[in-house]
């Protein structure tokens, strides 16, 4: 990922090479996998911070929060997949 960032910022031809690399199905899938992990971490992290503030700190609240986290993550991850392809 860092390599792609470096390449894309180095030069115009580097940027073109990144676009070319991202045309590859395997690279696309790898990018999607990394992005999915990151998005889930982000959403679960926001839920964690909300619970730190004292909201939903009950057995029922925790369950609802976990359900929302999983559902929202699934939607966002599918959206990311659509965006990549």
């Amino acid at each position: 990922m860092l390599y792609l960032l470096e390449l894309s910022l180095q030069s115009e031809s580097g940027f073109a090479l990144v676009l070319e690399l991202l045309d590859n199905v395997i690279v696309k899938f790898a990018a999607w996998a990394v992005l999915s992990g990151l998005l889930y971490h982000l959403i679960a992290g926001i839920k964690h911070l909300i619970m730190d503030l004292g909201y939903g700190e009950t057995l029922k609240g925790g369950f609802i929060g976990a359900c929302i986290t999983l559902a929202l993550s699934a939607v966002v991850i599918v959206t990311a997949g659509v965006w990549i392809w």
Partner: protein
Amino acid sequence: MVTNVTNLGRSGLYDWIIQRFSAIILAAYSLCILASFVMNPDMDFAKWSSIFEGNAMRFFSMITLFALCAHAWIGMWTVLTDYMTPLQLGTRATFLRILFQAGCVLLIAVYLLWGIQIFWGN
């Protein structure tokens, strides 16, 4: 089990607060990058490099890079001291965990230096 010499802040309270603040910085940066993609559907090299060129964005990128490193250190420490313990690994647990943690720290150092090179190099 030796744990308190391998965490970042040397105290749970420091780690706790560093982890929260770095999380907020990382989330803000992620959303900014996401927004730049949404606002530029026809992204090309000129637009892409101009996003990272300004001084404000350079500082933001750099602060985020530091936040990422701290966040990763604390996060890996938390996970490893929870799941690489004598309970799972027996008597050599501490040795194995510190070896693993050293690997993580090395990787974090590489990311930090490489990241500085990318954002500030050209």
